[in-house]
Protein backbone atom coordinates (compact mmCIF):
# COMPACT_ATOMS: atom_id res chain seq x y z
CA UNK A 1 0.00 0.00 0.00
CA UNK A 2 1.34 3.39 -1.00
CA UNK A 3 1.44 6.00 1.70
CA UNK A 4 -0.86 8.93 1.01
CA UNK A 5 -0.62 12.12 3.00
CA UNK A 6 -3.41 14.68 2.78
CA UNK A 7 -3.42 18.27 3.88
CA UNK A 8 -5.90 21.15 3.67
CA UNK A 9 -4.40 23.97 1.67
CA UNK A 10 -5.26 27.41 0.34
CA UNK A 11 -3.46 29.28 -2.47
CA UNK A 12 0.09 30.19 -1.51
CA UNK A 13 0.52 27.45 1.09
CA UNK A 14 3.68 25.42 1.07
CA UNK A 15 2.54 21.80 0.96
CA UNK A 16 5.90 20.19 1.45
CA UNK A 17 9.57 21.06 1.03
CA UNK A 18 12.04 18.80 -0.64
CA UNK A 19 12.60 16.77 -3.77
CA UNK A 20 9.10 16.26 -5.12
CA UNK A 21 7.38 16.47 -8.48
CA UNK A 22 4.69 19.18 -8.77
CA UNK A 23 1.42 17.87 -10.24
CA UNK A 24 -1.97 19.49 -10.77
CA UNK A 25 -2.39 22.92 -9.17
CA UNK A 26 1.04 22.80 -7.58
CA UNK A 27 3.96 25.06 -8.38
CA UNK A 28 7.59 24.56 -7.44
CA UNK A 29 9.23 27.54 -5.75
CA UNK A 30 12.82 26.72 -5.02
CA UNK A 31 12.43 23.58 -2.96
CA UNK A 32 8.89 24.37 -1.85
CA UNK A 33 5.78 22.83 -3.35
CA UNK A 34 3.13 25.52 -3.33
CA UNK A 35 -0.64 25.06 -3.71
CA UNK A 36 -2.50 27.21 -6.23
CA UNK A 37 -6.04 26.32 -5.13
CA UNK A 38 -8.17 25.69 -2.11
CA UNK A 39 -8.32 21.96 -1.66
CA UNK A 40 -6.75 18.82 -0.36
CA UNK A 41 -3.09 18.37 -1.12
CA UNK A 42 -2.04 14.81 -1.77
CA UNK A 43 1.48 13.48 -1.53
CA UNK A 44 1.93 10.08 -3.11
CA UNK A 45 5.56 8.97 -3.18
CA UNK A 46 7.25 11.86 -4.96
CA UNK A 47 4.20 13.39 -6.59
CA UNK A 48 2.37 16.30 -5.06
CA UNK A 49 -1.01 17.42 -6.31
CA UNK A 50 -3.98 19.40 -5.08
CA UNK A 51 -7.56 18.17 -5.42
CA UNK A 52 -9.40 21.50 -5.72
CA UNK A 53 -12.67 22.05 -3.87
CA UNK A 54 -13.99 24.87 -6.05
CA UNK A 55 -13.64 26.20 -9.54
CA UNK A 56 -15.18 26.32 -12.97
CA UNK A 57 -14.97 23.48 -15.45
CA UNK A 58 -11.98 23.70 -17.76
CA UNK A 59 -12.28 21.12 -20.55
CA UNK A 60 -9.72 18.33 -20.86
CA UNK A 61 -9.37 15.92 -23.75
CA UNK A 62 -11.15 12.59 -23.31
CA UNK A 63 -13.60 14.07 -20.77
CA UNK A 64 -17.25 13.07 -21.12
CA UNK A 65 -19.48 16.12 -20.97
CA UNK A 66 -23.18 16.86 -21.17
CA UNK A 67 -23.80 19.85 -23.42
CA UNK A 68 -26.78 21.74 -24.73
CA UNK A 69 -26.84 22.82 -28.35
CA UNK A 70 -27.03 26.61 -28.40
CA UNK A 71 -26.33 27.33 -32.05
CA UNK A 72 -26.26 25.53 -35.37
CA UNK A 73 -23.78 26.98 -37.84
CA UNK A 74 -23.26 25.91 -41.45
CA UNK A 75 -20.50 23.51 -40.49
CA UNK A 76 -21.37 22.18 -37.08
CA UNK A 77 -23.04 22.68 -33.72
CA UNK A 78 -22.09 24.86 -30.79
CA UNK A 79 -22.88 23.46 -27.37
CA UNK A 80 -22.94 25.01 -23.92
CA UNK A 81 -20.77 22.68 -21.85
CA UNK A 82 -21.02 24.62 -18.58
CA UNK A 83 -17.63 26.21 -19.10
CA UNK A 84 -16.10 29.49 -20.20
CA UNK A 85 -15.47 27.84 -23.56
CA UNK A 86 -18.14 26.76 -26.04
CA UNK A 87 -17.94 23.18 -27.28
CA UNK A 88 -17.90 22.75 -31.05
CA UNK A 89 -19.13 19.62 -32.76
CA UNK A 90 -18.11 19.65 -36.45
CA UNK A 91 -20.49 18.22 -39.06
CA UNK A 92 -17.88 15.72 -40.27
CA UNK A 93 -17.92 13.98 -36.92
CA UNK A 94 -21.61 13.22 -37.35
CA UNK A 95 -22.14 12.79 -41.10
CA UNK A 96 -18.71 11.40 -41.94
CA UNK A 97 -15.96 12.46 -44.32
CA UNK A 98 -18.28 13.31 -47.22
CA UNK A 99 -20.06 15.95 -45.17
CA UNK A 100 -20.89 19.07 -47.12
CA UNK A 101 -22.89 21.99 -45.78
CA UNK A 102 -24.88 22.16 -49.02
CA UNK A 103 -26.09 18.55 -49.07
CA UNK A 104 -26.54 17.83 -45.37
CA UNK A 105 -29.04 19.56 -43.14
CA UNK A 106 -27.49 19.78 -39.70
CA UNK A 107 -30.80 20.38 -37.97
CA UNK A 108 -32.02 16.89 -38.92
CA UNK A 109 -29.63 15.47 -36.33
CA UNK A 110 -29.47 18.05 -33.55
CA UNK A 111 -31.19 21.39 -33.15
CA UNK A 112 -30.94 24.21 -30.66
CA UNK A 113 -31.95 22.99 -27.21
CA UNK A 114 -30.95 19.35 -27.70
CA UNK A 115 -28.86 17.71 -25.02
CA UNK A 116 -25.75 15.81 -26.03
CA UNK A 117 -23.48 13.39 -24.27
CA UNK A 118 -20.14 14.03 -25.94
CA UNK A 119 -16.44 13.50 -25.55
CA UNK A 120 -13.88 16.29 -25.67
CA UNK A 121 -11.91 15.31 -28.76
CA UNK A 122 -9.32 18.08 -28.70
CA UNK A 123 -8.62 21.15 -26.62
CA UNK A 124 -5.56 23.33 -26.27
CA UNK A 125 -7.03 26.57 -24.91
CA UNK A 126 -6.15 28.53 -28.05
CA UNK A 127 -9.33 27.38 -29.73
CA UNK A 128 -12.68 26.25 -28.42
CA UNK A 129 -12.87 22.58 -27.42
CA UNK A 130 -13.86 20.15 -30.14
CA UNK A 131 -16.55 17.62 -29.30
CA UNK A 132 -17.14 14.18 -30.73
CA UNK A 133 -20.07 11.82 -30.40
CA UNK A 134 -18.26 8.73 -31.67
CA UNK A 135 -18.28 6.13 -28.95
CA UNK A 136 -20.73 3.90 -27.08
CA UNK A 137 -23.58 5.77 -25.45
CA UNK A 138 -22.61 9.12 -26.93
CA UNK A 139 -25.02 11.33 -28.81
CA UNK A 140 -28.37 12.90 -28.19
CA UNK A 141 -29.93 12.49 -24.75
CA UNK A 142 -33.65 12.06 -25.45
CA UNK A 143 -35.03 12.59 -21.94
CA UNK A 144 -34.22 12.91 -18.29
CA UNK A 145 -33.87 15.34 -15.46
CA UNK A 146 -30.88 17.65 -15.34
CA UNK A 147 -28.93 18.18 -12.13
CA UNK A 148 -25.94 20.47 -11.93
CA UNK A 149 -23.19 20.07 -9.37
CA UNK A 150 -19.82 21.74 -8.86
CA UNK A 151 -17.59 20.17 -11.52
CA UNK A 152 -14.83 19.66 -8.94
CA UNK A 153 -17.12 17.29 -7.05
CA UNK A 154 -17.81 14.96 -9.97
CA UNK A 155 -15.04 12.49 -9.01
CA UNK A 156 -16.73 12.17 -5.61
CA UNK A 157 -20.07 11.41 -7.25
CA UNK A 158 -18.50 8.74 -9.43
CA UNK A 159 -16.49 7.21 -6.58
CA UNK A 160 -13.81 4.57 -6.70
CA UNK A 161 -14.15 2.80 -10.04
CA UNK A 162 -17.69 4.12 -10.38
CA UNK A 163 -18.83 2.55 -7.13
CA UNK A 164 -20.94 5.47 -5.94
CA UNK A 165 -22.70 6.26 -9.18
CA UNK A 166 -23.39 2.60 -9.96
CA UNK A 167 -24.84 2.18 -6.50
CA UNK A 168 -27.20 5.12 -6.94
CA UNK A 169 -28.21 3.91 -10.40
CA UNK A 170 -28.89 0.40 -9.10
CA UNK A 171 -30.81 1.41 -5.98
CA UNK A 172 -33.06 3.84 -7.87
CA UNK A 173 -33.28 1.85 -11.14
CA UNK A 174 -32.28 4.99 -13.03
CA UNK A 175 -29.99 5.58 -15.91
CA UNK A 176 -27.53 8.31 -14.90
CA UNK A 177 -25.29 10.11 -17.35
CA UNK A 178 -22.54 12.11 -15.67
CA UNK A 179 -20.58 14.80 -17.47
CA UNK A 180 -17.19 15.83 -16.11
CA UNK A 181 -18.50 19.37 -16.52
CA UNK A 182 -20.88 18.88 -13.60
CA UNK A 183 -24.05 18.34 -15.62
CA UNK A 184 -25.86 15.12 -14.84
CA UNK A 185 -28.91 13.65 -16.55
CA UNK A 186 -31.07 11.19 -14.62
CA UNK A 187 -33.71 9.10 -16.33
CA UNK A 188 -36.12 6.57 -14.85
CA UNK A 189 -39.40 6.36 -12.95
CA UNK A 190 -40.51 9.62 -11.28
CA UNK A 191 -39.87 8.20 -7.77
CA UNK A 192 -36.50 6.80 -8.80
CA UNK A 193 -35.44 10.09 -10.37
CA UNK A 194 -36.47 12.00 -7.27
CA UNK A 195 -34.42 9.71 -5.05
CA UNK A 196 -31.40 9.82 -7.33
CA UNK A 197 -31.51 13.61 -7.50
CA UNK A 198 -31.64 13.81 -3.72
CA UNK A 199 -28.63 11.51 -3.46
CA UNK A 200 -26.68 13.61 -5.97
CA UNK A 201 -27.52 16.78 -4.06
CA UNK A 202 -26.39 15.17 -0.83
CA UNK A 203 -23.03 14.38 -2.39
CA UNK A 204 -22.76 17.96 -3.64
CA UNK A 205 -23.41 19.33 -0.18
CA UNK A 206 -21.27 16.95 1.78
CA UNK A 207 -18.52 16.12 -0.69
CA UNK A 208 -15.80 16.87 1.80
CA UNK A 209 -17.38 14.89 4.65
CA UNK A 210 -16.58 11.41 5.83
CA UNK A 211 -18.79 8.36 5.35
CA UNK A 212 -20.48 9.65 2.25
CA UNK A 213 -21.28 6.18 0.96
CA UNK A 214 -23.09 5.25 4.16
CA UNK A 215 -25.07 8.48 4.08
CA UNK A 216 -26.16 7.86 0.51
CA UNK A 217 -27.10 4.27 1.36
CA UNK A 218 -29.17 5.55 4.28
CA UNK A 219 -30.90 8.11 2.08
CA UNK A 220 -31.76 5.48 -0.49
CA UNK A 221 -32.83 2.99 2.17
CA UNK A 222 -30.31 0.34 1.22
CA UNK A 223 -28.52 -2.14 3.45
CA UNK A 224 -25.35 -0.48 4.67
CA UNK A 225 -22.27 -2.20 3.40
CA UNK A 226 -18.67 -1.21 3.26
CA UNK A 227 -17.48 0.02 -0.12
CA UNK A 228 -14.42 -1.62 -1.62
CA UNK A 229 -11.08 0.13 -0.97
CA UNK A 230 -12.66 3.44 -0.09
CA UNK A 231 -9.71 4.02 2.21
CA UNK A 232 -8.18 6.45 -0.25
CA UNK A 233 -11.18 8.79 -0.30
CA UNK A 234 -10.88 12.30 1.18
CA UNK A 235 -12.77 10.99 4.22
CA UNK A 236 -9.59 9.87 5.91
CA UNK A 237 -7.93 13.23 5.94
CA UNK A 238 -9.29 13.97 9.39
CA UNK A 239 -11.24 17.15 8.77
CA UNK A 240 -14.01 18.55 11.02
Amino acid at each position, binding site marked *: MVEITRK*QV*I*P*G*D*VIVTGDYRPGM*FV*QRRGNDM*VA*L*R*IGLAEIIRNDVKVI*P*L*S*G*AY*IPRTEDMVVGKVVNVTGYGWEADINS*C*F*VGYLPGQFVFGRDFSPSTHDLTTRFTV*GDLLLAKIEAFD*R*TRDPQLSIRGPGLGKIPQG*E*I*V*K*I*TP*MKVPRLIGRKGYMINMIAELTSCEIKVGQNG*VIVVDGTPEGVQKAVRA*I*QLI*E*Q*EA*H*MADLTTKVQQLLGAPIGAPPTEAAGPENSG*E*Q
Partner: protein
Amino acid sequence: MTEEKRKLMDENGIRTDGRRWDELRPLKMEVGVVRNADGSALIEWGKNKIIAAVYGPKEMHPKHLELADRAFLKCRYHMAPFSVDERKNPAPSRREIEISKVIREALQPALFLEDYPRTAIQVYVEVLQSDGGSRVAGITASALALADAGINMRDLVVGCAVGKVDGKIVLDLNDTEDKEGSGDLPYAFMPNLNQVTLLQMDGLFTLDEFKQALDLAKVGGMKVYKLQREALLKRYFSGGGPETSTSTTEMMEEA
Protein backbone atom coordinates in the same frame (compact mmCIF):
# COMPACT_ATOMS: atom_id res chain seq x y z
CA MET B 1 -4.22 74.38 6.79
CA THR B 2 -4.56 77.41 9.05
CA GLU B 3 -7.48 76.32 11.19
CA GLU B 4 -6.87 74.63 14.53
CA LYS B 5 -6.88 70.85 14.08
CA ARG B 6 -8.50 68.39 16.40
CA LYS B 7 -6.08 66.23 18.34
CA LEU B 8 -6.13 62.69 16.92
CA MET B 9 -4.03 61.13 19.67
CA ASP B 10 -4.10 61.99 23.36
CA GLU B 11 -1.12 62.25 25.70
CA ASN B 12 -1.37 58.53 26.55
CA GLY B 13 -1.09 57.62 22.89
CA ILE B 14 -4.76 56.63 22.60
CA ARG B 15 -6.43 57.35 19.27
CA THR B 16 -9.92 58.71 18.56
CA ASP B 17 -11.45 55.24 18.65
CA GLY B 18 -9.51 54.07 21.69
CA ARG B 19 -6.82 52.11 19.90
CA ARG B 20 -3.06 52.30 20.37
CA TRP B 21 -0.80 53.13 17.43
CA ASP B 22 -0.18 49.49 16.47
CA GLU B 23 -3.70 48.10 16.82
CA LEU B 24 -6.08 47.07 14.06
CA ARG B 25 -9.78 47.83 14.07
CA PRO B 26 -12.12 44.86 14.66
CA LEU B 27 -11.94 42.65 11.58
CA LYS B 28 -14.28 39.91 10.41
CA MET B 29 -14.38 38.00 7.16
CA GLU B 30 -16.75 35.46 5.69
CA VAL B 31 -16.43 33.52 2.45
CA GLY B 32 -19.23 32.38 0.14
CA VAL B 33 -21.91 34.96 0.88
CA VAL B 34 -23.25 35.62 -2.63
CA ARG B 35 -25.10 32.62 -4.01
CA ASN B 36 -25.10 33.70 -7.64
CA ALA B 37 -21.41 34.46 -7.81
CA ASP B 38 -18.68 31.92 -8.51
CA GLY B 39 -16.81 33.21 -5.51
CA SER B 40 -17.54 35.84 -2.89
CA ALA B 41 -16.53 37.27 0.46
CA LEU B 42 -17.80 39.75 3.00
CA ILE B 43 -15.41 41.82 5.04
CA GLU B 44 -16.25 43.96 8.04
CA TRP B 45 -13.24 46.04 9.00
CA GLY B 46 -13.95 48.80 11.48
CA LYS B 47 -17.05 50.43 10.07
CA ASN B 48 -16.34 49.14 6.58
CA LYS B 49 -18.81 46.62 5.23
CA ILE B 50 -17.74 45.39 1.84
CA ILE B 51 -18.86 42.53 -0.37
CA ALA B 52 -16.55 41.23 -3.08
CA ALA B 53 -17.97 38.93 -5.73
CA VAL B 54 -16.12 37.14 -8.52
CA TYR B 55 -17.71 35.91 -11.73
CA GLY B 56 -15.83 33.78 -14.17
CA PRO B 57 -13.76 32.76 -15.90
CA LYS B 58 -16.52 33.25 -18.46
CA GLU B 59 -16.83 34.26 -22.08
CA MET B 60 -15.51 37.74 -22.79
CA HIS B 61 -18.01 40.38 -23.84
CA PRO B 62 -17.51 42.44 -25.93
CA LYS B 63 -15.74 39.75 -27.95
CA HIS B 64 -13.20 42.07 -29.57
CA LEU B 65 -11.62 42.87 -26.20
CA GLU B 66 -10.69 39.28 -25.44
CA LEU B 67 -7.00 38.53 -25.09
CA ALA B 68 -5.62 35.58 -27.03
CA ASP B 69 -3.13 34.52 -24.36
CA ARG B 70 -4.73 35.37 -21.04
CA ALA B 71 -7.90 36.29 -19.21
CA PHE B 72 -9.15 39.84 -19.07
CA LEU B 73 -9.43 40.95 -15.47
CA LYS B 74 -12.23 43.43 -14.86
CA CYS B 75 -12.56 45.12 -11.51
CA ARG B 76 -15.25 47.42 -10.29
CA TYR B 77 -15.05 49.21 -6.98
CA HIS B 78 -18.37 50.83 -6.21
CA MET B 79 -19.74 52.65 -3.21
CA ALA B 80 -23.43 52.26 -2.50
CA PRO B 81 -25.34 55.56 -2.30
CA PHE B 82 -26.04 54.84 1.39
CA SER B 83 -22.48 53.91 2.28
CA VAL B 84 -21.55 57.41 3.42
CA ASP B 85 -23.18 60.15 5.53
CA GLU B 86 -24.20 62.32 2.61
CA ARG B 87 -25.86 60.38 -0.23
CA LYS B 88 -23.30 59.46 -2.85
CA ASN B 89 -24.23 59.65 -6.49
CA PRO B 90 -24.23 56.02 -7.64
CA ALA B 91 -22.45 56.88 -10.90
CA PRO B 92 -18.77 55.92 -10.84
CA SER B 93 -16.74 58.86 -9.61
CA ARG B 94 -13.17 59.76 -10.50
CA ARG B 95 -12.06 58.25 -7.20
CA GLU B 96 -13.91 54.97 -7.75
CA ILE B 97 -12.45 54.58 -11.22
CA GLU B 98 -8.97 55.04 -9.80
CA ILE B 99 -9.58 52.56 -7.01
CA SER B 100 -10.97 50.02 -9.50
CA LYS B 101 -7.71 50.32 -11.40
CA VAL B 102 -5.45 49.95 -8.37
CA ILE B 103 -7.46 46.98 -7.11
CA ARG B 104 -7.09 45.33 -10.50
CA GLU B 105 -3.36 45.95 -10.48
CA ALA B 106 -3.04 44.73 -6.91
CA LEU B 107 -4.79 41.43 -7.69
CA GLN B 108 -3.33 40.73 -11.11
CA PRO B 109 0.15 39.57 -9.95
CA ALA B 110 -1.45 36.88 -7.78
CA LEU B 111 -3.47 35.33 -10.60
CA PHE B 112 -2.52 32.89 -13.32
CA LEU B 113 -4.48 34.77 -15.96
CA GLU B 114 -2.62 32.88 -18.70
CA ASP B 115 -4.41 29.70 -17.55
CA TYR B 116 -7.69 31.13 -18.86
CA PRO B 117 -7.06 32.59 -22.31
CA ARG B 118 -9.86 34.42 -24.14
CA THR B 119 -12.02 34.66 -21.05
CA ALA B 120 -13.05 37.36 -18.60
CA ILE B 121 -12.79 37.35 -14.83
CA GLN B 122 -14.94 39.96 -13.16
CA VAL B 123 -14.38 41.23 -9.65
CA TYR B 124 -17.07 43.40 -8.10
CA VAL B 125 -16.27 45.25 -4.90
CA GLU B 126 -19.39 46.80 -3.38
CA VAL B 127 -18.91 49.08 -0.43
CA LEU B 128 -22.09 48.91 1.65
CA GLN B 129 -20.75 51.03 4.47
CA SER B 130 -17.55 52.96 4.22
CA ASP B 131 -14.81 53.81 6.67
CA GLY B 132 -11.11 54.53 6.24
CA GLY B 133 -9.07 52.03 4.25
CA SER B 134 -11.84 50.68 2.06
CA ARG B 135 -9.54 49.96 -0.85
CA VAL B 136 -7.31 47.65 1.18
CA ALA B 137 -10.37 46.01 2.70
CA GLY B 138 -11.70 45.58 -0.85
CA ILE B 139 -8.46 43.94 -1.98
CA THR B 140 -8.45 41.58 1.00
CA ALA B 141 -12.04 40.53 0.30
CA SER B 142 -11.43 40.21 -3.45
CA ALA B 143 -8.51 37.85 -2.86
CA LEU B 144 -10.79 35.65 -0.76
CA ALA B 145 -13.50 35.76 -3.42
CA LEU B 146 -11.01 34.82 -6.16
CA ALA B 147 -9.75 31.86 -4.13
CA ASP B 148 -13.37 30.84 -3.48
CA ALA B 149 -14.06 31.02 -7.22
CA GLY B 150 -11.28 28.50 -7.76
CA ILE B 151 -9.01 30.61 -9.92
CA ASN B 152 -5.38 29.51 -9.89
CA MET B 153 -3.46 31.85 -7.61
CA ARG B 154 0.17 32.19 -6.64
CA ASP B 155 -0.83 33.54 -3.24
CA LEU B 156 -3.58 35.47 -1.52
CA VAL B 157 -3.36 39.25 -1.50
CA VAL B 158 -3.61 41.13 1.76
CA GLY B 159 -4.23 44.84 2.10
CA CYS B 160 -3.47 47.01 5.09
CA ALA B 161 -3.07 50.74 5.48
CA VAL B 162 -0.80 52.79 7.69
CA GLY B 163 -0.78 56.53 8.15
CA LYS B 164 0.55 59.48 10.03
CA VAL B 165 -1.52 61.28 12.66
CA ASP B 166 -0.17 64.00 14.94
CA GLY B 167 3.31 63.22 13.63
CA LYS B 168 3.16 59.55 14.64
CA ILE B 169 3.04 56.51 12.38
CA VAL B 170 -0.09 54.50 13.18
CA LEU B 171 -1.60 51.30 11.86
CA ASP B 172 -4.95 51.01 10.05
CA LEU B 173 -6.46 54.50 9.81
CA ASN B 174 -10.12 55.04 10.50
CA ASP B 175 -12.23 57.55 8.62
CA THR B 176 -11.44 60.54 10.88
CA GLU B 177 -7.72 59.85 10.87
CA ASP B 178 -7.81 59.37 7.12
CA LYS B 179 -9.48 62.74 6.56
CA GLU B 180 -7.82 64.81 9.28
CA GLY B 181 -4.48 63.03 9.60
CA SER B 182 -1.36 64.10 7.78
CA GLY B 183 -0.64 61.04 5.69
CA ASP B 184 -2.02 57.73 4.45
CA LEU B 185 -0.19 54.77 2.96
CA PRO B 186 -2.33 51.95 1.55
CA TYR B 187 -0.33 48.79 1.08
CA ALA B 188 -1.12 45.38 -0.36
CA PHE B 189 1.16 42.39 -0.62
CA MET B 190 1.36 38.67 -1.16
CA PRO B 191 2.37 37.32 2.23
CA ASN B 192 3.99 34.05 1.23
CA LEU B 193 5.88 35.52 -1.68
CA ASN B 194 6.61 38.70 0.24
CA GLN B 195 5.92 40.83 -2.82
CA VAL B 196 4.20 44.21 -2.82
CA THR B 197 1.27 44.65 -5.21
CA LEU B 198 -0.05 48.02 -4.09
CA LEU B 199 1.75 50.95 -2.57
CA GLN B 200 0.20 54.37 -2.58
CA MET B 201 1.05 57.39 -0.51
CA ASP B 202 -0.87 60.48 0.35
CA GLY B 203 0.71 63.25 2.45
CA LEU B 204 4.31 63.76 3.41
CA PHE B 205 6.55 61.14 4.99
CA THR B 206 10.26 61.47 5.63
CA LEU B 207 12.37 58.53 4.48
CA ASP B 208 12.59 57.23 8.04
CA GLU B 209 8.87 57.57 8.56
CA PHE B 210 8.24 55.79 5.28
CA LYS B 211 10.46 52.87 6.26
CA GLN B 212 8.79 52.68 9.64
CA ALA B 213 5.36 52.81 7.99
CA LEU B 214 6.23 50.04 5.58
CA ASP B 215 7.44 47.77 8.37
CA LEU B 216 4.29 48.46 10.36
CA ALA B 217 2.11 47.74 7.31
CA LYS B 218 3.78 44.34 6.93
CA VAL B 219 3.22 43.46 10.56
CA GLY B 220 -0.42 44.59 10.38
CA GLY B 221 -0.86 42.79 7.07
CA MET B 222 0.28 39.50 8.54
CA LYS B 223 -2.38 39.82 11.23
CA VAL B 224 -4.97 40.40 8.51
CA TYR B 225 -3.62 37.42 6.58
CA LYS B 226 -4.10 35.18 9.59
CA LEU B 227 -7.80 36.08 9.76
CA GLN B 228 -8.14 35.82 5.97
CA ARG B 229 -6.74 32.29 6.08
CA GLU B 230 -9.07 31.31 8.89
CA ALA B 231 -12.09 32.61 6.98
CA LEU B 232 -11.19 30.54 3.94
CA LEU B 233 -10.42 27.38 5.89
CA LYS B 234 -13.65 27.76 7.84
CA ARG B 235 -15.70 27.89 4.66
CA TYR B 236 -14.13 24.79 3.17
CA PHE B 237 -13.05 22.56 6.01
CA SER B 238 -15.27 23.11 9.02
CA GLY B 239 -17.77 20.41 8.01
CA GLY B 240 -20.89 22.29 7.04
CA GLY B 241 -20.53 25.61 8.80
CA PRO B 242 -23.30 28.16 9.34
CA GLU B 243 -26.14 29.09 7.03
CA THR B 244 -23.87 29.68 4.05
CA SER B 245 -22.80 26.06 3.85
CA THR B 246 -25.25 24.94 1.18
CA SER B 247 -23.64 25.64 -2.12
CA THR B 248 -24.48 25.63 -5.77
CA THR B 249 -26.79 22.66 -6.22
CA GLU B 250 -29.64 23.72 -8.36
CA MET B 251 -31.68 22.53 -11.26
CA MET B 252 -31.13 23.93 -14.70
CA GLU B 253 -34.05 26.27 -15.23
CA GLU B 254 -35.32 24.42 -18.31
CA ALA B 255 -35.18 21.00 -16.69
